[in-house]
């Protein structure tokens, strides 16, 4: 039983990380239908900036969080202004490809600034790991889970209850119609990049004490986060958390009861299975997806 619990907790720890990254994909997808493949880099930026402010500039904790969020938002804004906007195209594939290019450039810049070694800092709350039924769970895991939950609630409220949020969703459904009713589409797209950069960066800041952060961690994070987002249905906040946790727990169980060498195949097998059998995700509505045209 203890062993099972330990596998479960380990899965939760990893799964919460995936979920948080999956969320970032959803925000930009919700506003633009672009899949931002530089999402993993936002996460890395969050972790490394947090280290920079905390350890290198010795800024107090909350100020460091604030500064990291601010800088990440700024980077999101610059990315959108410099790469997405000048394209003046509606071709989603082109825009998605541009995000790959951005991710490569960002990785290069991060390597120049931070070098190749991993970074870490103390967990948000000091203390021994919690022991439940003989199994241990790191306190930082609760932070990651809590932040994920808070992001989901906040984003749900934002997209469903505020005018700006609704306008952003409208842009995703049909940019032309949205601009006809007076929504500044390009500003909405810019907001969505800022927002997802911020969510990614907060995630990065939260997971670094657990997993460490180095300049080239982005692609791996992006793959797992993307699987989480797809599993839950792209664009669905709740979907990403269920998807992320499921993948994390399945990976851990596979490593525990089958073999740890098979673990990384799990996310990809799930991704393929979902794409074959439920292309709209576990919670998505396939008919609606077809009507939307992609």
């Amino acid at each position, binding site marked *: 039983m203890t062993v099972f619990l*330990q*596998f479960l*907790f380990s899965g939760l720890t*990893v799964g919460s990380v995936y979920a948080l990254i999956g969320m970032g994909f959803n925000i930009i997808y919700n506003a633009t239908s672009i899949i931002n493949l530089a999402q993993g880099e936002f996460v890395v930026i969050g972790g490394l900036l947090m280290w920079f402010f905390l350890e290198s500039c010795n800024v107090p904790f909350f100020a460091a969080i604030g500064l990291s969020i601010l800088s990440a938002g700024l980077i999101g804004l610059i990315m959108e202004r410099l790469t997405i906007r000048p394209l003046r195209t509606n071709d989603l594939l082109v825009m998605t490809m541009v995000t790959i290019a951005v991710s490569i450039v960002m990785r290069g810049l991060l390597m120049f600034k931070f070098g*190749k070694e*991993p970074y870490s800092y103390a967990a948000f709350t000091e203390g021994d790991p919690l022991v439940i039924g003989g199994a241990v769970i790191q306190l930082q895991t609760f932070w990651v889970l809590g932040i994920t939950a808070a992001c989901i609630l906040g984003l749900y409220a934002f997209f469903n209850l505020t005018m700006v949020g609704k306008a952003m969703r409208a842009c995703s459904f049909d940019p032309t119609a949205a601009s006809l009713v007076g929504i500044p589409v390009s500003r909405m797209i810019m907001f969505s990049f800022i927002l997802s950069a911020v969510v990614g960066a907060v995630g990065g800041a939260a997971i670094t004490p657990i997993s460490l952060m180095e300049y080239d961690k982005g692609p791996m994070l992006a793959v797992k986060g993307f699987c989480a987002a797809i599993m839950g249905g792209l664009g669905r906040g709740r979907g990403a958390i269920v998807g992320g946790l499921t993948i994390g727990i399945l990976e851990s169980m596979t*490593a*525990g009861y089958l073999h*740890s060498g098979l673990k990384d195949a799990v996310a990809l097998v799930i991704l393929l299975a979902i794409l074959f059998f439920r292309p709209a995700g576990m919670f998505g509505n396939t008919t609606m997806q077809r009507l939307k045209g992609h």
Partner: protein
Amino acid sequence: MKPLRLILGALLLLVLTASFVPAQEPIRIGAILSVTGAASFLGEPEKNTILMLKDQINKAGGINGRPVEVIIEDSKSDETQAVLAAKKLVERDKVVAVIGPSTTGESMAVIPTMTQNKVMLISAAAGTGITLPVKERYWIFKTAQYDMSAVEAIYTTLKKKGIAKIGVITITTGYGDAGRKALHEMAPKYGITIVADERYGPKDADMTTQLTKIKAAGAQAVINWSVGPGQVVVTKNWHALKMGIPLYQSHGWGSKKNIELAGKAAEGVIAPLGRVVVWNKLPDNHVQKSLLKKFVTDYTARFKGEPGQFGAHTYDSMQMILEALKKVGPDRSKLRDYVENNLKKWPGAGGVYTMSPTDHCGLDKNAFEMVVVKNGDWMLLK
């Protein structure tokens, strides 16, 4: 006008040719290193070390008055690039010997090129296949210790402590594969049983699942074989789980950065490390002490960081080549013969080498010190 033009033309030619003839033709040494790409953490200290030694020798007057030039090719951690670089170095640049590549895969890939062209290669990678079978590796040497030697150093300690059942956890890269193979091969010889054999990916965030399995299998010690952030995560998880059994790391553990990142979780972790990491803990009469002291202090002064184990690999290959050049001159096959036959009990940064026609690495388990982490610093295990 005509004679003026002629004179000017001649003058121009004269100036051009004059500036192209250097005072003394430099001796060229080649290096193929993973300066960028996945293995860049190897290539960087390796490159820095070579550049530093080159500057030092040239400042001291070069080899018998001739300056030394090192042509460093970046393999981008890629086998194909490594082979292209090897061809360029031996055919176009006409180097006298080649240092590197940084990884086992790239080293294996360039062996045919080097052998065909009859140029000595001193690899900085650890893989057993690089220098074995020695009959087919006439031109190939290496300065990195065998994984087998690191495993033997660990197993010797385990045996001394009466530990017979171990759990191994390895990273799914070439480094982890090689270590895992060596751990399995050497276990019977030391009367050790591997009760759990776990793996993880290079970017994994949590290994508690694997460690829990190892504990449940009744292991008396955990051996982790990896480089990069994975070894820190394993250490943190091992500490968090309060496993009650010791954690051994591979010789990849030898960076102060790891202790910094793992914090108090690193206390008590044991690893076989090259002396370059613990040079200041060595007794003063140790044969490697003075050269290590100079190497590490010079390196730190110039590059802000430690050369570590990887810097030590190219330090030794460069010193071997420079010594051979001084003794036998820039002749490809004489250089090879010198390295094979004349380096006996030769103190280097990675250990004390004894090269021979049957051993092209020249190091054994004595190249390692067993080191334990205590109060955030290395301590020699007594």
